[in-house]
């Protein structure tokens, strides 16, 4: 009896193992139905356009159209605005709007609605409200308006493709928090509140009578996960149709499934943002030779190999590959050369090295990054100390109290040169000590006065100057993977990690 039971169990296990070995991989790929299920780790704080930020834009793009569309290559195309043009001073932007768009309650989308949205975004205290700081919007007629800036801002068109350009129904503005969980826009989808569980799953239905081309998908679901392991399992089993994978191990897991399609996305770079180029906290950093020494001291190739299994591209520049200012030759400007680093330190009168303290946010600075950087810098005499900071107070310590000379950070690389400049180079959040020089100020002034298509040489000059003067210590651009299942086509979006909703379609 006992033997029979054991024999049955053994047969069951063997059968299961046999089935396991046989299943998956060889099945013919059926045509995909017209549903799109996206997995993500980004969570929107609300669906009110004033709260929209980078990684959560797909949640908003589904229900809100923007004034201008940012195409996959980063160029600008008509959306709710059909035409636009700057005046000669680049401070006044004329916009012509569509005249055939309305919100669900019949409220027309017109220049008054656009002005109400832009004013509200500027004054709403959202994370990107500074995009429109000082901007004045004037309605010329139902389909024409102007945006007047206090000084030229070459990023304005980009902002209007992003959070500042999302157009909501102004009839809802009078009610506080009306758009937070029940968005009201003119986008290609409407939120299905009955199937949506805010915080975990957002479900959208294709909008009837959408003014533009109907999307291929009748339903769109965006589900939030807190780990990529579950996302990969969802992709492998067809429960998800697309997701962006950031971690090397989960990219590897997805690559092992031949049915999945993976595309490279280069968006974030990782490196040290050296805020203290004036030497306010660490005097040694005021000398460009010291900052150059830091750059020569780091073995980027080894670090990339150890930290990300080689999934990325080493670089010495902060301008992204989709910008005009990007110069591939600058990527290896600071090739690993500890002898040269030591010589530069000696030239700067720091032959015995110096001490540098950086905050350690464990979500970014993993053990192997911490050890690699510490070891590389120690080899040229620089003593790096990691200061443990609490996630709840880190931002205040770093950006408000200015306790540190720099920090290791993962930074997105926009497709807009001006965003790269205004984010990292101009005095502001990431240049809170306000350091600058004549070259930077000259180029920034010239760029402001020119149309964007005439600025490529200036941005390349600026990028080269920033690299030569070692404003930063970039390590590498990290390769992410945009994964899709059979039957779904998707195009990556320049200067954006999560691709735009518009870039998905059913495969032919």
């Amino acid at each position: 009896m006992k033997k029979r039971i054991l024999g049955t169990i053994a047969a069951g296990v063997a059968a299961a193992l046999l089935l396991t070995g046989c299943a998956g991989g060889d099945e013919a790929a059926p045509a995909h139905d017209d549903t799109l299920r996206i997995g993500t780790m980004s969570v929107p704080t609300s669906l009110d356009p004033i709260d929209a930020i980078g990684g959560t834009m797909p949640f908003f793009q589904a229900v809100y159209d923007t004034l201008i569309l940012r195409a996959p290559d980063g160029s600008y195309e008509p959306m709710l605005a059909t035409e636009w043009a700057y005046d000669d001073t680049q401070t006044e932007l004329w916009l012509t709007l569509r005249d055939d768009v309305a919100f669900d309650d019949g409220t027309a989308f017109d220049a008054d609605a656009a002005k109400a949205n832009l004013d509200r975004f500027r004054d709403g205290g959202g994370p990107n409200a500074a995009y429109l700081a000082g901007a004045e919007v004037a309605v010329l007629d139902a389909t024409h308006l102007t945006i007047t800036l206090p000084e030229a801002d070459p990023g304005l068109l980009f902002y209007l493709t992003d959070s500042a350009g999302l157009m909501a129904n102004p009839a809802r503005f009078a009610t506080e928090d009306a758009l937070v969980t029940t968005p009201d826009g003119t986008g290609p989808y409407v939120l299905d509140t009955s199937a949506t569980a805010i915080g975990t799953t957002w479900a959208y239905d294709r909008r009837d009578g959408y003014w533009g081309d109907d999307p291929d998908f009748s339903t769109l679901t965006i589900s939030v996960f807190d780990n990529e392991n579950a996302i990969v399992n969802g992709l492998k089993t067809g429960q998800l149709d697309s997701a962006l994978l950031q971690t090397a191990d989960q990219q590897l897991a997805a690559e092992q499934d031949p049915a999945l399609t993976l595309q490279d996305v280069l968006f974030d770079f990782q490196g040290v943002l050296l805020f203290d180029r004036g030497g306010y906290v660490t005097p040694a950093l005021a000398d460009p030779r010291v900052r150059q020494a830091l750059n020569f001291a780091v073995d980027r190739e080894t670090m990339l190999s150890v930290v990300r299994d080689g999934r990325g591209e080493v670089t010495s520049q902060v301008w992204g590959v989709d910008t005009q200012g990007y110069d591939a030759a600058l990527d290896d400007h600071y090739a690993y050369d500890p002898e040269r680093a030591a010589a530069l330190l000696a030239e700067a009168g720091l032959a015995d090295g110096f001490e540098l303290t950086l905050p350690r946010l464990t979500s970014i600075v993993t053990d192997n990054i911490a050890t690699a950087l510490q070891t590389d810098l120690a080899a040229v005499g620089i003593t790096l100390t990691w200061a443990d900071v609490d996630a709840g107070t880190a931002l205040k310590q770093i950006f408000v109290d200015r306790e540190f000379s720099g920090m290791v950070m993962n930074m997105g690389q926009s497709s807009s040169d001006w965003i790269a400049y205004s984010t990292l180079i101009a005095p502001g959040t990431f240049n809170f000590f306000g350091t600058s020089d004549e070259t930077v100020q000259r180029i920034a002034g010239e760029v402001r006065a020119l149309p964007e298509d005439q600025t490529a040489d200036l941005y390349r000059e600026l990028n080269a100057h920033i690299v030569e003067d070692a404003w930063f210590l970039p390590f590498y651009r990290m390769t992410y993977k945009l994964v899709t299942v059979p039957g779904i086509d998707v195009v990556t979006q320049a200067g954006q990690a999560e691709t735009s909703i518009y870039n998905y379609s059913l495969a032919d």
Partner: protein
Amino acid sequence: MLAFLARRLGASVVLLFVTSFVTFMLLSLANQDVGRQLLGINASPEAVAAKNASLGLDRPLLVQYADWLVRAAQGDFGRSWFSSEYVTVAIGNRLPVTLSLVIGVTVLTAVVGYLLGVWAGVRRGGIDRFVQVFSVAGYALPGFLVTIVIVIVFAVQLRWFPAIGYIPITQSVGGWLSTITLPVIALSISAIAGIAQQVRSSVIEVARADYIRTLATRGLPRRLILFRHVLRNASAPALTVLGMQFVGLLGGAVIVEQIFGLPGIGAMTIQYTTRGDVPVIMGLVMLSAVGVVIINLLVDLGIGWLLPKARIS
């Protein structure tokens, strides 16, 4: 009985008050820069201050707590700072997921663990050795490893069950069963091991007691002694362990929820605690505290029913 319930109710109110006060103070002291975290590093100091004021964080801590307490007593736990969900709705959306797991694990554990434990304690011999080996293995195998193996074999490879997600029972009973089966099995292995071991030990101990021997020598049928005396007395410790497991699983199924992508309370607790979302964390803590109170009460009543002697205390 009524006096007992009244005493427990009074103690529970005090427990909930103390728990809420201590939790609120600890969370608030740890959260120094909520507006900045919400708006990001690009936001101006004025915008950050305005955001903090809109959340009421510019008021003294005791005033904030009193405000929270008054509203919570009326069932209004406020909104999540980070996702704008109403706390009751957010928890309400996720509670069925966790309750499905917890109840499923508890039922499976109670039935299988109890049967294995009784079988091993009564029969001894080979089955006893099997239960002991199973118990040791159940304890020793890391839960996340077991869960990963289960999901890879039965969901990713064999496709017998979904790898991720949850289907509400109201939407489809079959779908609900398919989404909770693997997580319940993954969570039950160590729980069954614990209950089986507990029941086995209790059965053996009670069976050796003098009064059981006396009953046997008086000629009472073996089956009657087993069911009326041995199992009744041996069940009380198992019931206590089962109650503790139930409470632990309310927030403790984190790894399983994460691996299966289940939007439950455990994963939610981690997410919102990491962000420092005080309104949601307070709601979760209160849910957990109420759960502890109710389960402890039920366990006490159950033990009182099983062992009348225990009712005195």
